[in-house]
């Protein structure tokens, strides 16, 4: 067969009857308007900034911030620079977003499955949970949790739901292990072990696909993820003593503390997002054809096994895309922190803006941080989605 020739492109003529020419005109018009509007706004901004004697640019990042940040995971003092304050803010945002996403996924999946339970009471309660949380603004829920948190008894009269856990207006205090570099080394080894195990498992499954002989992979898992780090820890003498919180005067010493602001924010975003995730999980499971259940049950498989190995993997394909947008929402919603004084990136940028007047730079930084986080979550979830997608011949 001779390769088919493409029809030649119709020649552009300079008349309004010609679609190509009309398209070009439209584009010039719209882009022109956009350029003029943005240029006008920009020239106004330059003028206003020079009137107010604010210099543009990111030079202020090197200056001393002088703003106190109470709840940090990395060392910070008000003498540090704005740049460091921003990094603290990014870490604070990430620690709400990452832990929130993990918890919201777990809670949401459980509630979503509970809504489909054969037990009437359980499914009704799950439905009430979803309806109530979805239809009340997150900010209101956040303020509510924060007020409740402030209404808790002071440290001296703290509630002890479980031994070692204290809930008071100082937040949640729990037993923890003070981490230093040695611990991080061991955790690093365990992470490497996980990665090695993942590769090994893939290899073993590929081999099993070839000859059909099952190769158990859990012994390697125990070896790489538990025994190896334990050995490293024992050889390098890393202490794993758990520090129990104790009441000293008006506050606690030892253990890990979740500040009330962080704790309230975490509860609010987790419960709110879990209600949406529950609906996504429910509709995902319902999207799996009933015949799949019938066929699997007819084979004599247990209900829990069918759910885990047959229904959920298929439901995941429906679940992942909307789940991704919930993760993005949770991350963006973590910025409500500013309302209760938890110092995330938005709150720190806002303080910076008030202190220095660098409005454009501060808001550009917020946008850059959130766009980066959103893009990373999207990329990761797209990769995951491609991995679990149905591969058809």
């Amino acid at each position, binding site marked *: 067969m001779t390769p088919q020739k493409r029809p030649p492109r119709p020649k552009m003529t300079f008349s309004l009857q010609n679609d190509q020419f009309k*398209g070009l005109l439209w584009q010039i018009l719209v882009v022109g308007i956009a350029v003029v509007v943005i240029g006008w706004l920009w020239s106004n901004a330059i003028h206003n900034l020079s009137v107010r004697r604010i210099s543009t640019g990111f030079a202020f990042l090197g200056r001393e911030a002088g703003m106190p940040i109470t709840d940090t995971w990395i060392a910070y003092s008000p003498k540090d620079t704005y740049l460091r304050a921003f990094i603290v803010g990014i870490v604070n945002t990430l620690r709400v977003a990452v832990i929130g996403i993990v918890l919201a996924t777990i809670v949401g999946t459980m509630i979503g499955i509970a809504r489909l339970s054969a037990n009437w009471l359980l499914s009704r309660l799950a439905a009430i949970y979803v309806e109530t949380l979805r239809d009340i603004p997150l900010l*209101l829920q956040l303020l509510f949790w924060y007020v409740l948190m402030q209404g808790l008894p002071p440290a001296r009269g703290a509630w002890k739901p479980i031994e070692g856990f204290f809930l008071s207006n100082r937040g949640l205090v729990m037993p923890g292990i003070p981490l230093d570099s040695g611990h991080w080394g061991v955790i690093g080894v365990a992470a490497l072990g996980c990665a090695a195990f993942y590769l090994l498992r893939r290899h073993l499954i590929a081999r099993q696909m070839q000859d059909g002989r099952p190769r158990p992979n859990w012994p390697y898992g125990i070896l790489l993820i538990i025994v190896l780090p334990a050995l490293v820890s024992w050889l390098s003498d890393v202490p794993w003593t758990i520090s129990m919180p104790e009441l000293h005067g008006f506050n606690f010493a030892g253990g890990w503390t979740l500040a009330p602001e962080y704790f309230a924010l975490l509860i609010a975003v987790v419960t709110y997002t879990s209600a949406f995730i529950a609906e996504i999980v429910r509709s995902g499971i319902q999207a799996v054809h009933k015949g799949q259940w019938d066929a699997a049950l007819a084979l004599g498989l247990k209900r829990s096994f069918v759910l885990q190995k047959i229904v959920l993997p298929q439901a995941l394909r429906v679940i992942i895309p909307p789940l991704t947008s919930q993760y993005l929402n949770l991350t963006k919603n973590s910025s409500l922190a500013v309302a209760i004084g938890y110092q995330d990136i938005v709150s720190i940028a806002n303080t910076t803006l008030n202190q220095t007047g660098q409005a454009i730079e501060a808001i550009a930084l917020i946008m850059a941080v959130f766009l980066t986080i959103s*893009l990373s979550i999207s990329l990761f979830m797209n990769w995951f989605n491609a991995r679990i997608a149905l591969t058809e011949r």
Partner: protein
Amino acid sequence: MATLTDVPQAPRPAARHRTGWDAHPALRWMRANLFSSIGSTITTLILIALLAKALIGLVQWGLVNAVWTEPANDSAACRAARGIGACWAVIPEKYRFILFGTYPYDQQWRPAAAILVFIALFFVSSRRSFWRRELVLIWAGALSLIGLLMWGGIPGLPYVAQERWGGLPVTLILATFGLAFGFPIGILVALGRRSKLPAIRSLCVLYVELIRGVPLISLLFMASVMFPLFMPDGFNIDKLLRAQIAIIMFAGAYLAEVVRGGLQAVPRGQQEAADALGLTYWQKNRLIVLPQAIRHVIPPLVNTFIAFFKDTSLVLIIGIFDLLTAAKTAIIDPAWQAFSVEVYVFVAVIYFAFCYAMSRYSRSLEQAQTAK
């Protein structure tokens, strides 16, 4: 064709003697839905125990030990009941402020009437028989009427400056005007995103992704802090209007994605047929494509509106007097400071009533669509 009735059937077994669990339909229902297996029975019992404990606590706090009325400006009885009972007396004391903010007290029938106009507008828009072009006129009329009621400035209605507005009308205004003005933007951007012209397409993609990628708060900060920077000297507009513009821009991006979903659902043949008839681009979209696309996306449109309605509460952070801000301000009063939980519950009920009604409505539409 043989149907079931043609097949000779064994005579039905005589009704079994019903005992115990089968004795009553309610008992049979309980057996099937609450105690069908050991696991289910355990779950039910645990849930009943937890529920009973929670309900007893709630009833004691919210009803039995609650304080319902108080003499004006005196919260002594409430403070006495603190910790063991709710202080609902704060609601009759503060509800006018929570609902209408600092609107002149003797004129507060006007925002109340505006709320009713809003509810009537939502109700009319939800009726299928009103889904016609004239609906645009109804919206324009209703929104103008609301503006007239709130601003006044004609004989009989003294002028009320925007700074005095507050409470529920502001929440409704931010959300509804956001939808009304964001929708045309959304349609244009959605069309632009599917356009064959690369420059227009990339502008639209940039707009949608930038806005959707950042939190609404940062847009509101932009509106409250950066807007004056970008305007010429001496030109300034009201804070509420600036927030409204931010919400419209935000709404435009999200609505564009919703409308785009609808455009994708219109079969290609419709477009090709319109082209073959020689319709221009605008005629084709106005007469053929958009009417079908929009009908398709009404349920997600309602859901997006619910999201805006909740998201307008974020204006609290830039200090605009919406329902939530009014509630938060109401409890600054030292006498009632300790009873914020009660006030938040009251406001939550209002938000819930609006959102739940709308989400029930959107679900009924979805069911009607799938049933078709």
